[in-house]
């Protein structure tokens, strides 16, 4: 009987593994659902896009930082050709310019959204590299983009600025609407503001 107890759990597990799920209910194609249910568990791992690594500056560990990562990330880029221009400065012997990172989603257009291309491995390295998403989750994200990729559902919420689609930054874009809103992100921005940190690696970029 005791062994049966354990085996019953294992059997129940096996049964659940082969039974179909409850149905085809409509999931909420909103950022409020997509961020914690899909992106946080799959992308915000410690070596990838959580605060401790934030590879490429992308942090999906919270709805706020995740939305900022997709739509409104500001970065320092090395660009010696822009010496003296507004928004640029010297750091560690090179020139860095504050620019808006290319948005990874293009509202209303999933096929032009970098996010979808990496999730599908379409002309881009597949993400997440260790756990490709199931089709239903990708479709849900596409639906969210088709609906405007809004942060919330209120009618007053405007879709994010799509930004230039060619990958170039838009230095004149308005800051703030999708900016990091929690203190952690603000704290970390101090580090980014240390121009030498930007320039160390950026020097390679300039050279390359």
């Amino acid at each position: 009987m005791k062994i049966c107890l354990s085996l019953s759990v294992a059997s129940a597990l096996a049964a659940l593994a082969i039974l179909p799920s409850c149905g085809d209910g409509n999931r909420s194609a909103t950022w409020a659902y997509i961020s914690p249910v899909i992106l946080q568990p799959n992308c915000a791992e410690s070596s990838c896009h959580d605060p401790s690594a934030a590879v490429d500056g992308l942090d999906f560990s919270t709805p706020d930082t995740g939305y900022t990562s997709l739509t409104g990330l500001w970065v320092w880029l090395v660009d010696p050709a822009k010496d003296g221009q507004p928004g640029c400065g010297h750091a560690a012997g090179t020139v860095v310019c504050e620019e808006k990172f290319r948005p990874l989603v293009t509202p209303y257009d999933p096929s032009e959204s970098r996010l979808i291309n990496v999730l599908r491995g379409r002309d881009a390295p597949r993400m997440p590299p260790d756990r490709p998403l199931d089709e239903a989750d990708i479709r849900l994200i596409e639906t969210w983009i088709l609906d405007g990729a809004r942060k919330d559902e209120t009618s007053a919420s405007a879709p994010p600025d799509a930004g230039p689609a060619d990958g170039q930054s838009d230095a004149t874009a308005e800051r703030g609407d999708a900016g990091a809103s929690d203190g952690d992100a603000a704290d970390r921005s101090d580090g980014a503001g240390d121009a030498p940190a930007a320039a160390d690696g950026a020097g390679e970029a300039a050279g390359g």
Partner: protein
Amino acid sequence: MRARHLILAAILGGVSTLALQPAAHAYPQFQLSSGSSRCDECHYSPDGGGLINAFGRDYVSDELSTFGGNGQLLHGAVRLPAWLALGGELRGAFVSENDGDINGTTNAVFPMQADAEARAAYGVVSFYGVLGLRGQVRSDDTIVPEQNYQPVTASTLVSREHYFMLRSGSLGGYVRVGRFFAPFGLRMAEHILYVRQDLGFGTMQESYNLSAGYLAEQWELHVTAFAPDFIRHMGSRESGLTAYVERRFADIEAAALQLRVASGPGMTRTIVGAVSKTWIAPLKTLVLAEADFVRRDIPTISPSYQFVGVGGFSVLPFKGIMATLLQERDQVDLSVSDATYNATTALLSWFPYAHCEIQGMARLQVPSGGQDEKTLFVQLHYWL
């Protein structure tokens, strides 16, 4: 340049998913199968994992290793006073991953873990700490984000676990406070399992806890209040409460119920689950399973439900050999039929000599309607 950056991130990201194996998780397969019914018979931690005690080191010498050896610190070359215990873990690995990526199969050899462990006790009070080098997957930055930024060098040296514990003996109550994983689930070493990755027990997701529990011969209880890492901002940002109660029967069966209520950014989730292990001695086989149902509460959205489970068995046919086969299921939302992941994982561990392990793993993940992922992995593991 940006494309090169993304390609690099993809390759390194794949490697990194396997690059960090928390020392806090040991081999739950040894419970019951080793003749010990409680994890803390071999480990200092009341729920197992991490530094092993004198009994555990003797077990390594006498029972675990194919060719024996001395399981004591530095193979017995150093004797420490009873109040002090030291240890360490080194792992190196090879991984090959294929997920249909445009860059083809990723192959890599990489350092996986380098941790030092220490425990010091004074009477009923003890301190336990782990300090190690964290695998760093990024090169220096060529793009420096102003938001979300974490310098490359900021998180290289980390302590996955550090806690004080008040405990009078192996049986009875305890209280501990510090950073560690709250006792929950099967606690398999493989952090890539969905029951770990999806439920708040992934790599570096140790939380800061206040935990209390009671251990008896036939049962144990652990209750833990947890909060996010407030020092390094690593891992989960959830806070809440877990409870885990385990009942053992005749040293061949362990069954547990568990609860976790966690509130994090954008979501509160309640996890109710069960864990079981059964040792079938004639077959030298341990059957093990974990099943968890998750209720997610998200503001402005109706509650949704998830199922995450793993089941399988471990066979220990010869001294020093352990083969494990696991089947996993992650049903992301029970209201949708095709939001699921299935995975099959085969593990083969050989402990040839005290302090040494060679492990191979093959894993196939099948996301519903998505791209399969195949992983081959070999690691060399040496512990002090």
